């Protein structure tokens, strides 16, 4: 018979305390400055370095790790190391395209030169703002202008006088009205009235009318000449203005050209600026702003068209940029074109082009959260497009998808040379890798962070140093040696493994900060282990409302869980519930019923779709194990049902398969199961009990129920042997075990579990292949044989009746 004591764990096996003997320190002040969150993350760190070193296309990096794993800081610090060794990237400016203002030009300057160019252009504008009106107000210009105007007036007047004189010779006066001219016949220089005219002989009247008709046509011809004279006048003034402007702006523009002689695109632009100012000289003569802004809309030039929109400014950069965009929406990544309202219309120009994170990071590194990016529309497609095209084209998503037909700015694309470091959960990486072929082309490097490290002396020491650094960096009270040890132990508990240490940074920082808080509450200068303990307990207390409600329900027999006595076909299984980041275990009653049948085991959870795929798999495995173990040479003539009683939510995982098989065997054999025990573990087809997750929470969950009903020394939990290394149980559980009030049994096989749960030897086959009488297995086999025979007899009778 399985010896209970041989599988019973000692208190020492339930918790692995920290061994910090090799680290000499009293508190964390003795250790600061020696830790690194990168410790143990060699694979991921090497991958990031590799990705950053690879200059070829597509070697962008995806850092895989859970939230709070310090993945951002790791990626950023490595990127910074690389960035410091590189020169700052160039500056980029957008300037007006005088030929096609809808398509602003992009100018590239050496780092810092963009600012200089912008300032130079601003100075030029300021200079021109004063110089150009001054030129137009100069005496010299006025004289020349007056001469042109006089000449034009003289021409017009000469034309009119000639006509007037020729009309007068024919006794016709030219009268001017506000809108035109009237030709009136005269006699003795006096306009004829109707009566005077009618008094004239018919022939003379006829002549006058003919004269007026003829002169009217001449006058019309004469008037038609006027626009040409005025046009000539305008052209002459324009020519004069151009001459004056050339002199006014020639010198300052020449100075700028000399300064930017190395930047060919800037020279071309300055040529255009010069030409544009000269051509639009007329517009610069207006020195006073109109009383209402709209009076100037679309009329005449403005100095703002010569401004420079400095999109990327690396004047103060010491190396390549490392940019993290916390809100990776489309405009923040790709850039945007802003508008401002003018009389109800939205207007824009090259000055309102705004760069995005891609621009800011060009020549360096851009860190983006994968989940945030994917949850914002259009960003992923736009990012891919930019990386594949190696340019950033600023356009609205509507334009990008061809949804807009209105005219919008089309800024020249800016070359892109950036290394993307995307940070996300593992599942997200695999999801993208599987579903987007371009993802693999663009993100060739995966930096997979370790969730936990082996709990070796070296790694423990590194964890201690890291704790000291965090304490120091966050300005917390020094942690005493025992407090550090307790934190290390909690790292193991977080890893669900006494032999490993979690690398999760956020939970570490949270625990340190909260421990510091509780130390502060008691006015302590240093943090002790009791503060860490308090922090852990308080965190659980804040989160365990649902757990307490469940325990309360069990105590009040609303949820039926027996913790004493024996029952046939009924066993206490163990489940773990997760609420956010808080997990807790609790017992769950599993029952099995059996009868004659054709070998099917009905998993009620699966039938009603409350059981997940893994749970269903577990039930199928135990069915196979049952058949293989007891009905190898006879038909399995059994029908069984397995139920998780009072379970109304979904259940997954196979960690209850040992419990389910035990309930089944109890039901078949009629041997009752002790209700003071709970069992967890999965089983394979050969009856081997296998490791399961959440072992600590499960044990503690049953312990809490038993404790509430007063521990009597018989309570305990049966767990897989392979889970012993994962045990990091609560102090009170360990203490209860040490006091003999509670037990934890570790088993390797279903037989060991059955023996413990029933108190009856499971039994092994002897040399003849038979189970010893009185054992559970014997009873099971006999009952199955009975079912088979009964079924056969029933079948024969039925055939006989037919």
């Amino acid at each position, binding site marked *: 018979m399985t010896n209970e004591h041989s599988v019973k764990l000692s208190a020492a096996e339930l918790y692995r305390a920290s061994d910090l003997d090799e680290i000499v320190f009293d508190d964390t002040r003795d250790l600061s400055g020696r830790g690194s969150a990168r410790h143990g993350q060699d694979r991921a760190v090497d991958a990031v370095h590799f990705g950053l070193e690879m200059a070829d296309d597509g070697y962008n990096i995806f850092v895989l790790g859970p939230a709070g794993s310090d993945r951002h800081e790791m990626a950023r610090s490595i990127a910074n190391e690389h960035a410091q060794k590189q020169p700052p990237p160039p500056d980029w400016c957008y300037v007006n395209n005088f030929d096609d203002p809808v398509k602003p030009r992009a100018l590239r300057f050496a780092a810092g030169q963009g600012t200089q160019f912008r300032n130079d252009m601003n100075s030029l504008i300021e200079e021109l703002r004063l110089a150009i009106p001054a030129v137009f107000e100069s005496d010299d210009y006025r004289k020349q202008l007056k001469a042109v105007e006089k000449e034009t007036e003289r021409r017009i007047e000469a034309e009119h006088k000639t006509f007037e004189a020729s009309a007068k010779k024919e006794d016709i006066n030219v009268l001017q*009205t506000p*809108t035109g001219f009237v030709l*009136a016949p005269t006699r003795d220089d006096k306009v004829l*009235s109707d009566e005077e005219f009618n008094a004239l002989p018919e022939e003379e009247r006829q002549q006058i009318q003919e004269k007026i008709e003829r002169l*009217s046509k001449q006058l019309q011809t004469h008037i038609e000449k006027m626009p040409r004279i005025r046009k000539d006048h305008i052209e002459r003034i324009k020519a004069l203005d151009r001459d004056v402007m050339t002199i006014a702006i020639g010198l300052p523009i020449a100075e700028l050209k000399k300064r930017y002689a190395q930047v060919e695109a800037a020279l071309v632009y300055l040529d255009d600026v010069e030409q544009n100012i000269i051509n639009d000289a007329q517009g610069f003569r207006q020195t006073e702003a109109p009383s209402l802004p709209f009076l100037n809309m679309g009329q005449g030039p403005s100095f703002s068209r010569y401004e420079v929109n400095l999109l990327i400014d690396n004047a103060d950069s010491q190396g390549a940029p490392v940019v993290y965009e916390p809100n990776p929406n489309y405009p923040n990544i790709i850039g945007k074109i802003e508008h401002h309202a003018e009389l109800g219309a939205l207007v824009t120009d090259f000055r309102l082009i705004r760069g995005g994170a891609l621009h800011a990071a060009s020549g360096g590194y851009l860190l983006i959260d994968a989940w945030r990016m994917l949850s914002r529309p259009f960003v992923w497609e736009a990012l891919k497009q930019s990386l594949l095209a190696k340019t950033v084209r600023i356009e609205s998503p509507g334009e990008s998808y061809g949804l807009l037909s209105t005219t919008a700015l089309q800024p020249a694309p800016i070359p892109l040379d950036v290394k993307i470091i995307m940070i996300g959960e593992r599942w997200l990486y695999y999801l993208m890798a599987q579903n987007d072929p371009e993802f693999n082309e663009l993100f060739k490097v995966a930096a997979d962070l370790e969730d936990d490290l082996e709990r070796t002396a070296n790694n423990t020491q590194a964890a201690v140093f890291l704790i000291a650094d965090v304490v120091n960096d966050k300005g917390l009270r020094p942690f005493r040696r025992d407090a550090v040890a307790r934190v290390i132990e909690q790292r193991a508990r977080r890893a669900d493994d006494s032999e490993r240490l979690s690398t999760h940074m956020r939970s570490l920082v949270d625990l340190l900060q909260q421990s510091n808080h509780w130390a502060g509450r008691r006015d302590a200068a240093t943090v002790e282990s009791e503060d860490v303990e308090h922090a852990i307990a308080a965190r659980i207390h804040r989160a365990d409302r649902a757990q307490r409600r469940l325990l309360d329900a069990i105590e009040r027999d609303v949820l039926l869980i027996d913790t004493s006595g024996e029952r046939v076909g009924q066993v206490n299984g163990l489940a773990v519930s997760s609420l956010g980041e808080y997990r807790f275990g609790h017992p769950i009653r599993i029952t099995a019923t059996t009868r004659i049948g054709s070998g099917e085991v009905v998993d009620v959870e699966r039938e009603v779709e409350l059981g997940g795929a893994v749970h269903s798999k577990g039930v199928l495995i135990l069915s196979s194990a049952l058949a293989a173990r007891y009905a190898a040479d006879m038909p399995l003539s059994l029908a069984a049902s397995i139920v998780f009683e009072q379970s109304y939510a979904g259940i997954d995982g196979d960690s209850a398969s040992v419990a389910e098989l035990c309930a089944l065997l109890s039901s078949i054999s009629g041997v009752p199961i002790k209700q003071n025990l709970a069992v967890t573990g999965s089983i394979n087809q050969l009856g081997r009990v296998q490791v399961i997750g959440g072992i600590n929470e499960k044990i503690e969950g049953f312990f809490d129920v038993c404790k509430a009903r007063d521990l009597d020394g018989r309570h305990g939990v049966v767990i897989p042997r392979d889970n012993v290394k994962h045990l990091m149980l609560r102090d009170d559980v360990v203490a209860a075990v040490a006091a003999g009030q509670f037990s934890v049994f570790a088993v390797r096989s279903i037989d060991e579990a059955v023996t413990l749960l029933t108190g009856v030897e499971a039994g092994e086959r002897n040399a003849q292949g038979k189970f010893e009488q009185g054992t559970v297995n014997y009873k099971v086999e006999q009952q199955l044989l009975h079912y088979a025979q009964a079924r056969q007899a029933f079948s024969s009778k039925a055939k006989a009746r037919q």
Partner: protein
Amino acid sequence: MNAVVSKHKIVIAVTATSSAKPLWRAAMDLLARAEGELIAVFVADERWERAAGLPFTREISSITGTASAFTPERAQDLVAASATRMRRKFEKMAARNSRNMVFEILSDVDERMIDRLVGDSQLTVIASHELSGSPVYLTLQRRRCEIVLVGDAGLGKPVDETAD
């Protein structure tokens, strides 16, 4: 001995095609030297009325060169519109300069109205050159009024319509 001190009147005489601004400036210059009553007079050109009475008279647009009938109604409308426009201009300028001003319309052949305007005042008339030789000009000369001709509003010169 009692001396009769005559009242000083400054009269700005404008036509439909006069530039109001230079005339106003000239009047202001005069008033700065010697105070007097300010009167703006719109002189209706009687030749328009006579010409409009002829059935074949056409007005040829100075902008487009197109011809349209120049009827007595059209002539009256032009006079009324021009007078109104001038009155508004002068009122505006008077308000801006805080001046009291009287605005009148007279026909250049109505000597009775001219006599009433002159009365026993010492009259200084500021007029544009286009009025020289007109009936009203000759009448004022005969009444020994001081006439100051301002500007050079030759034929075809654009009418001053700019904001004052």
